[in-house]
């Protein structure tokens, strides 16, 4: 035993009520990471962290725009490069996924959608919605770009 307060998360109970030292949720060792519930959960975290890249790009874009045409040309060059487009695409996927999964989270917080079949339905909606919104965003952006 250590003095770390998180040891408290290692005190589980068997179904008969007796105490056992094992991790309580959420814990990677206790989950099948390929089932929808835990996969979508970790992806919400991953997408939130990945969106940091989007924030950095936005701040760079704004500061360059405020600095003048030369600095702005540099950002636009990067955003139009292969790497830049790849990052933008990743940010689009992460952004829509995190938004939709976030709304799902807020519904749970309000007490809705906990039944197992509702959970699977909302999970599928989040995945399909992410694909649809990402596609829509890029189609519209490309149309705006070429016109």
């Amino acid at each position, binding site marked *: 035993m250590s003095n770390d307060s998180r040891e408290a998360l290692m005190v589980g109970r068997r179904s008969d009520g007796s105490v056992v030292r094992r991790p309580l949720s959420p814990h990677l060792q206790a989950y099948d990471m390929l089932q929808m519930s835990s996969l979508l959960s970790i992806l919400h975290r991953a997408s939130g*962290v990945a969106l940091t890249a989007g*924030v950095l790009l936005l701040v760079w874009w704004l500061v360059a*725009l405020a600095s003048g045409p030369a600095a*702005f040309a540099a950002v636009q060059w990067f955003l139009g490069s292969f790497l830049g487009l790849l990052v933008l695409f990743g940010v689009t996927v992460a952004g829509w996924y995190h*938004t939709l999964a*976030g709304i799902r989270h807020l519904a749970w917080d309000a007490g809705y959608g906990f039944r197992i079949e509702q959970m699977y339905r909302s999970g599928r909606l989040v995945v399909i919605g992410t694909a649809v919104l990402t596609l829509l965003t890029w189609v519209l952006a490309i149309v*705006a770009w070429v016109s």
Partner: protein
Amino acid sequence: MAEGVKRLQTPLGRVRGLGSARSGTHHWWMQRVTSIALVPLVVWFAAAAIGLAGAGYEASAAFVADPVNAVLLLLLVGVTLHHLAAGLQVVIEDYVRAEGVRLAAVWGVKAACLVLGLFAAVAILRIAV
């Protein structure tokens, strides 16, 4: 859900609502408030970014200079960075065990988010004002 379950918390503890962290549910609550605020802001921003695809310097500057766009951008940046700092804090607290490293990482993230927010705000105001 908890109907019929007897409360283990004392009435005073419930009124104070502070728990062992001494800050109650403020962090969690602000993460929900910023999440709700971000939904319309993110949708607006996606539409704005689509419209700006391929736009040059003049058109981009004119977009940010519009007062409505400038205010929405300031809101987006401010709320996003609050939400991001709070979110990354939770992630760090989950995975970084050593007390000193954890504190340094959380403070580092908060400082970085503050600095990024200030840069963005100054840039927006410089273009718009």
